[in-house]
């Protein structure tokens, strides 16, 4: 049984529980490795959590000059090895999803390791445990697709090529490969049309 992380931005309410919980995980030293962004706040309240997608062939590891980023037997791309990482930031530049962050002061790249300390003892990652809307879900693909109407996708077509990931994004319907590119705007919702109609 393979347990994976599923990200469903459509359910995200922007509360930042994931961001705060990530910093509480033992071994994270109070640092959060999740970014939570408004997609286009001027127009919409849509938010999206960005967690490491754990690529099958991770660009961050490929470009690391110090060979500091390792992948474990479960396909989890680990945070940089402190004794090797030189804080150059190549990984941050190379990642197609914008995940790794070089933490200033400690000159170390830190990124999501899927809560290694927790998953090793049968717990869910901290972010997926606390998320109050189910925007972050940890379990099997069968379970999440059985529970929900959305469908899981883990192949992404970037300008630079196809990226397969261990984690999944939930899409409104089965989409196959997800095309990524262009300027990000929040999808227009029915509710926004209803607000446009308001009589003032």
């Amino acid at each position, binding site marked *: 049984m393979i347990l994976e992380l599923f990200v469903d931005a459509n359910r995200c309410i922007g509360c930042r*529980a994931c961001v705060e919980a990530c910093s509480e995980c033992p071994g994270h030293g*109070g640092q959060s490795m999740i970014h939570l962004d408004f997609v286009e706040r001027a127009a919409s309240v849509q938010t999206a959590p960005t967690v490491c997608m754990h690529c099958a062939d991770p660009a961050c590891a490929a470009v690391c000059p110090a060979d500091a980023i390792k992948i474990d037997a479960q396909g989890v791309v680990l945070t940089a090895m402190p004794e090797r990482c030189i804080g150059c930031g190549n990984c941050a530049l190379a990642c197609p999803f914008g995940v790794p962050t070089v933490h200033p002061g400690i000159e170390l790249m830190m990124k999501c390791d899927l809560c290694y300390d927790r998953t090793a003892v049968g717990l869910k990652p901290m972010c997926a445990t606390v998320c*109050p809307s189910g925007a972050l879900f940890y379990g099997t693909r069968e379970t999440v697709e059985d529970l929900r109407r959305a469908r899981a996708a883990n192949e992404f077509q970037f300008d630079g090529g196809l990226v397969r990931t261990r984690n999944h994004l939930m899409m409104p319907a089965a989409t196959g490969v997800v095309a990524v590119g262009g300027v990000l705007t929040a999808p227009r919702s029915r509710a926004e049309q209803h607000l446009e109609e308001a009589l003032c």
Partner: protein
Amino acid sequence: MAMLPATVDALIDAHGPHLAFEPPGGFAARTAPDRRVETHCCFCGQQCGVKLLVKDEQVVGVEPWEEFPFNQGKLCPKGVKRYLQNNHPDRLRHPLVRTGRGFSRIPWDEALDLVAERFERLQRRWGRDGVAVLSGASLTNEKAYLMGKFARLAVGTRHIDYNGRLCMVAAGAANLKAFGIDRAANPWADIAATDLVMVLGANVSECSPITTDYIWRARDRGARVIVVDPRLTPIARTAELYLPVRPGRDALLMNAILHAVIRLGGVDRQFVAEHTNGFDGLRQALERCTPEAVEHEVGIPAARIVEAAQMWVQAPRTMLLHARGIEHHTHGVDNVLTCINLVLATGKIGKPGCGYATITGQGNGQGAREHGQRCNQLPGARDIENPAHRAHVAALWGVPETALPGKGATAPEIVEMIHRGEIRGLLSLCFNPLVSLPDAAFTRAALERLDFYVAIDFFLSETARHADLVLPGSLQEEDEGTVTSVEGRVIHVRKAVDPPGEARADWRIICDLAARLGVGDRFDFASPAAIFDELRQLSAGGVADYSGITYEKIDRQMGVFWPCPSLDHRGTPRLFEGGRFAHPDGRARFHAVEYRPPAEVADQEYPLILTTGRIVSQFLSGTQTRRIGPLVAHQPQPRVEMHPRLAGKLGIADGQRVRVTSRRGHVDLHAHVVATIRPDTVFIPYHWPGVHSANRLTLRAYDPIAKIPEFKVSAVRIEPLSGGDA
């Protein structure tokens, strides 16, 4: 007397708010905790289960409690970072007395003697009711019960009320009128099992985030969602139907929806005939309330109003949820009654996946409104003006019925009486009215007129800065007790650590004060469990019957839903099954509501509607959450939210400083220009004091029955300030 004893800056230097970012000793020192205490988050009425990690007798962190059924480990950011309030540098650790230059330490015995001496002196001069008690809805049931008994028997005043006056009272009064009982009608599991969720005036995603999960679980099964709110909130963004109501027009909207439901043939005639009274009068009153007639006042096209009625009629099971958005009004009770009318007329209550609830806001928003700290109430949700109820309580308290004071003033009225010099002494616990009451300048002037003010608090709140004497009480995790969650589920708050320094559990302070006031024998409690046992006895036979609930049973069942009238009773998760209501005849009541406009309507001088509310990272007046660094970092200061069309008309850019002015005063804030709010409405969150206080703008206008303030509608004007982004 109660002018600030030092400058605000000096008081902040000494007592905060300062920001805590890390557990004691830092994150690196936080290894292998000594114990994990299964308890609940102190913030908000959801009362999520959470484990607090304790090491060396200090709270050092948090772990989700996945076994607790309500939230199954889910938390909002407040729940994740709540532990940082413990070991906080601002924590009050010693009794403090006002001096010419701030506060200085005083021994406990002297402090308690001082309260007794000053209260007795004031009451000799001004009468028993010359001293008032203000209490809070974040207190445990045990403490809420104790405060009511303390005010009536120890202080002997009729004037005790609580900050639930700013929260639950409109819904509570309407529920009592319609159903004869004031509690969420359904357990939250019914939300996940419904076909249509209608959410009115509830920014669920920020104020009760865990409820989001229940709504999404319903949607996963195909349920649809209607949201009524002047702001396009995160839960509204994905709704099938969003009704951007003009603030203050909720009753008119709901009347029109029910009119359309009647026209569509959606009335459940059998249910109405068998289980309700008053429908014919309501139907007549609604005859002219067509969607077309009200659309301009409500601010929503008639077609959308009809669409809501169609969705409601088509759904076999519905759950209607509302919160402060429709309750913080001079017609808050009316607004709630119009919601209940819709639910009753269509018979959509008392069934699995089908019913109604108000979403309580405060930590013990439900339980703290049941056991006698309200000005008109005795334990067990009894009525202080009902002779039978008075006799029952007086007998169990061992006093003659005549010794029980009568109905007192509500919290806002208490402040007005202080302002008029009719109340001269005050004891407060768990209430920060300077930030939370409307018209903050008025509240400040009232506090400055008190002859003697004693505040029990864990941090020096903005209000407590005005006290003559500050007694260091307990944080939620420093005491044991029960609270009653949003669902009506009585749960067990476990003690994690002792209060620090000389601080004491709140209930010990109250019992010690009662002894100083000469009634120690009636407050001879050895533990919160002993107080709970007395509360159970007092509540027996009342509406809110807790007599069959014990701490052990709560632990075994993961909570017990009241009413629970005997030890072998499992509790009552769902009310009104089989259409049986709590009025003596077993029938629910319809109430025809004639729409009244808000107290203040937009005019040429003040052309915009201000509405206030909460953000996800702060809780109420912020006494706790404005001290938790990671939460403050989300949004360090309030901003005024406005639509780009309005901003364009006023020549305001996003981020620019603006002045918001009402008839009460003004605040200067940065503009947040977003297309997710009605263009005729602006929004400011209310968690901040002083120059950032939204309540400098709000008005002292109250619902005539519930006395809840009209926080959701004030008339304001806005002008840009020069200096751009400064």
